[in-house]
Each structure stands twice: as structure tokens, then as C-alpha cells.
């Protein structure tokens, strides 16, 4: 909420990429990420609103700050498909979001995401919890998969369908051609695997 209010103030002040002149002893202001837009040209007020909406919609994992946000706009029906790639110095992984921009309402809607910008310690902890599950271990040993897993943040809207409306982590191992995939849905708060899944293509 504070972040949204702050962003709105910044927008109204017309200085979305600069630190505002505020008393730093009272409010700690985050430095905004560098924002790049390419593809279908979006300009003026429409662009500013879109930037603001994206900045409010993309929330990094605690401990991660986005340094740069790259938006690629492509035409999709009457609107725009926005691929938003957010990067951070803290993590090798990127957070990738896909939004649909409706020109009539000038609103963006989140359509998909793959979020891998996770601090290394959190990533290791999530893998460690997944590996501690007997079920996951059984699946791994049966498949003989022994590769680095992908760790992805799952947003509460999605998690609600599989466990509870909270941030979870998906730890996924796949063999070289993704013919065999093993995944664990991990709740970091309770340090447990809430669901395990295996499948083959």
C-alpha cells in the first residue's frame, strides 16, 4: 500500500526514475528500477500509466530488489501482450511476467509468470526442504534424475488452489529432454513439502 502510494506520488511529480526530495529520516525510499520499453510504441500518458501499473503489479521476493525492468510490447487482438522481464543483482534468475493491456480500460491483467529471481540462500533452503521429503527422494531415486532443479516462486493466487493463499516455491527436476519431471511444492514458512508431483511427457 505504502509502495503504491509512493509510486503514485512519484508519478504525479513526474519523476518516476528519480529519488524524490523527501526527508530520508522519516521515509525510506526505494530506488526505482530502470525501465525499458520496446516493441509496439506506447507513448505519453498511456505509457506512464502502463509503467505505473506494471511497477505496482510486479512485486519481488523479500530481499530482492529489481534493478531493471524490460517490457516488450507486441500486438495481441485489439490490445497488447506485455512481456515483463525483471532482473536483480541479488539473483541469477529473472522474474518474467506476461500481462495483457486492454486499450479500452487502459488496465493490465496478469496472464502468466515464471519467477526465478530468488536470493541464493532462500533458493538453497527451498531445495533442502524438498530433498528432505521422503516422497520426493523416492521419486528422484526411481527416476535417477540428478540435476540442478529449477526453483520458482508461486504466487498466492495460484498456491490457493494447491495448498493455501501464500507464497510457495516450486522445486522442479527434469531430465535432459523434459521427458521425466519431478516437482515439489514447498512452504518455506512451515519448512515442508505440501505437494509432490511427477510426470512424463
Amino acid at each position, binding site marked *: 500500500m505504502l509502495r503504491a502510494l509512493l509510486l503514485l506520488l512519484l508519478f504525479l511529480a513526474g519523476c518516476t526514475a528519480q529519488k524524490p526530495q523527501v526527508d530520508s529520516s522519516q521515509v525510506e525510499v526505494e530506488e526505482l528500477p530502470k525501465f525499458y520499453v520496446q516493441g509496439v510504441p506506447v507513448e505519453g500518458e498511456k505509457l506512464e500509466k502502463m509503467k505505473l501499473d506494471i511497477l505496482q503489479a510486479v512485486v519481488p521476493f523479500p530481499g530482492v530488489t529489481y534493478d531493471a525492468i524490460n517490457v516488450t510490447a507486441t500486438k495481441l487482438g485489439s490490445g497488447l501482450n506485455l512481456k515483463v522481464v525483471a532482473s536483480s543483482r541479488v539473483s541469477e534468475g529473472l522474474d518474467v511476467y506476461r500481462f495483457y493491456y486492454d486499450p479500452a480500460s487502459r488496465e493490465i491483467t496478469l496472464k502468466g509468470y515464471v519467477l526465478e529471481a530468488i536470493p541464493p540462500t532462500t533458493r538453497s533452503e527451498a531445495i533442502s526442504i524438498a530433498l528432505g521429503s521422503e516422497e520426493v527422494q523416492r521419486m528422484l531415486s526411481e527416476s535417477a534424475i540428478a540435476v540442478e532443479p529449477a526453483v520458482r516462486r508461486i504466487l498466492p493466487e495460484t498456491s490457493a488452489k494447491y495448498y493455501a493463499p501464500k507464497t510457495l516455491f516450486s522445486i522442479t527436476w527434469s531430465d535432459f529432454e523434459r521427458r521425466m519431471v519431478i516437482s515439489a511444492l514447498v512452504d518455506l514458512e512451515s519448512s515442508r513439502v505440501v505437494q509432490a508431483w511427477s510426470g512424463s*511427457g
Partner: protein
Amino acid sequence: MLREVVRMRSGYFMAALMVLGMVVAANALSAEGIAVIEVKAPAQVGGSVDSVTKLVINPMYKNIQLKPGEEEEFRVKVKNREDRAVELVPKLQAMPFGEYMLEEDWVTISPTKAVVQKGEEQEFTIKVSVPGDAEVGSYNAQITFTNDTMPSMPYPYPRMANALTLSVNVWKPPTVIVSNNFIHDRVEAGKTYEYVVTVENRGNTTIPMKPKFGDDRGYRRCAGMYCPGELEEDWVTISAPESVKPNSRATVKISVKLPEYAKGQYEGRINLNIDDPSRPEWRRYDQMVTLSLQVWQKPSSPYEKEFTVKEEAKMLSVEVSVSEFAYQKYSTCGNPVEEPSFKVWFLDSESQEVELKPAKTVIAEAVNLGSWAQPPWEAECSAGMYTVERITYKSTYTIENPKAGTWHLYIMPEKAQKFEYTIEVE
């Protein structure tokens, strides 16, 4: 499947024939006055099915996961299917199998007894309280509602007929967090590589650690012609402190010295042997570090191909390509993975060396929408997102108006385990 069934049936048939044959033979022997040894059927353990009180227990299995000091309550409904009133006395009993018996004082059942009328249902509340000093592990027991037993051939103990199986997993959050359980890298034969595994101790006590190479318990060994080679113990040196102090991190350094003859894919495992109090010994899978190395051997000489250029050829073009899985582009521990490249040159029909730079380079990717073989929670949120699975690098070398005659093509690969090429003469 059908073949299996037929095989099984024929097996039974053969067994039946053998038994029949033995009976016939025994009778024949008996008729001849030779003593027949009477073989008694094994005694039936447990009561008969007809004498069992008919109850419906819901649920019949309950698994609870609790930390030491936690408690959980659940309800079980027992319906009387008999034509008479039945007295139910729930009791905690040991499982026929199982390492840890659930302690009796961890479980409270209320009411302690109940008389249930014909067709009626009784609800029991079962509370499981795990003491604060309980050890992590899997504790099992059954809660029986009657003393009825069922025949349990071929096992030598009775099976309780009206029972709920209760399984309690006592767990603790991991005290030890290991970073880099899976080390994957593309390396060169004859060189030495260093990898670092970080072990974080979040507990309040010092935790001993004794890494050992080659301990792969719990893992199925790969079988078949496409399996990686086993990393030799002599190639690997591990240096680590003997313990990890509370609330601190320790680093395990793994050095891999690859011999000149190493080639292809190798895999090996290191057991960190950390005495983590939050995990029972048989569940310390996260202490295994897998080393997966793709060893590239720099060839001593280039690949050579002789070919003919016809008279009045206008163009000679050679395309060299290498394809790799996207995952091969990344390595753990921050070692940069270089893109494959080639040095390409020719000897023309007059044995003159012709060195060329690529006239055209192409990068091609195989992209997957990820709609299959994905866990449901990822499939849903990543709908419409693309995943690069395979990357192909192509370079084309061209020579206009090549001289007619016998040419030689030379390709020296760099960081490429395999490649393809085409020679086109127009």
C-alpha cells in the same frame, strides 16, 4: 500384460498339476502299503470372517505431521452395521510392522467407551500430543474399536478387524541448509576445477561434518548404454572443516582434477555426513552433493574431409552446426560456460590453405510452450510462457568460383563435443 497373465495362469496350472500328481502318487503308494505322511494345513491365525463385528470406520488411515511440543485433534466416525447393539472400546495397539510404536501417553481418545445401537454411528475424538523432547521419526499404531481379529494368512499374527491406522511423523525444520546440491559443469580434460558447497548451521549446537566421496546410498544407479561414467575417487579432493559452529556457515571445497584421458559425461556423489539433529539419519538426502561433469577433450588434430569440386562450380559453401540443450549453457558455482566455436579452413585443389571467416552465422532455438510434463502449479501460471530447450549455432563459410579438383576441409572444434557439417557445391 496379457502375456503376463497367461504366464501366471500357466504357472498356477503347472502347480496344480504337480499337487494333483503328488496326491495321485501318494494314493498309489498308500495302496502299495507304504506309510503316508499326513501334512496338516497350517493353523489359521485370527478369528473367522463370520465372527467379526461389522463396523464402518471413517477414516481408516490418518497421517499427522507434528513438531515436538505440538498437538492435533481429529475425529473418527464408527458406524454399527450389526443387527444388535455393539460396545466399542477404543485401544491403542502396536502395528504388526513398524520401527517406532506410537507412545500410549501421546494419544487421548474420547469417549473411552460407547455402546452403539444397531445402524447408529459414534464419533470419537482422538488427540495426539507430541512431547517437546520427542525424537524426529515416523511413529505408528492402530486404534482398535473391538477385539475382533481376521485371518491373516500367511502371516503368523492376527490382523485387527476394526482398526484405524494412525501414523505420526514427528519433524523439525532443517537445521542445516546446503547450497549447491547439484553441481553441473562443462569442463576440459587435463584441467582442475574448484567447486564450493556452503553448509549453513541454523541451530544452537555445533554440528559435526565428515564429507565422503562415493556414498550414493538411496540413489538408483543408472543402467544402460546412455549412463554417465563414474567419477573416479582419485580425481576428487574434498576439504572441509570438521564441524559447523552454531549460526554460521562453513564451506566445503571440492577440487576435481580431470586426467587427460577423461572424456564424455561423468557423475559422482559426495555425502557430506552432517550429523543434523533435525533429520533422522535415513532422511538426510539433502546432504548428498551430485557432481555432474561434461568433459570436453580438446582434439589434437582437426577433422578432415576430402571432397571434389566440379568444373565451373560457382560457389562452395560449408555449413558447420552444433546443437546443445539449453541447460548445458549454464553451470553452477559461477564458472562461465563458453559457447561452442570452430576454426574452419580448406586446402584447395592446388594444396593452398584457404582460411575463412563465417559469411553467415545463425542461432536457432527449439522453444517449448511448457504445456506438458509440468507440475500443475507451474503449468497454470506459466501458460503462454516460452521455454528454450535446445540451441543450435550455425556458421556458413563460402568461396566464390572455387577451383576444380580435390579439396580438403578441416574443422577444429572448440568447446563442442559433437558437430555436424554440410558441403554444398553449386
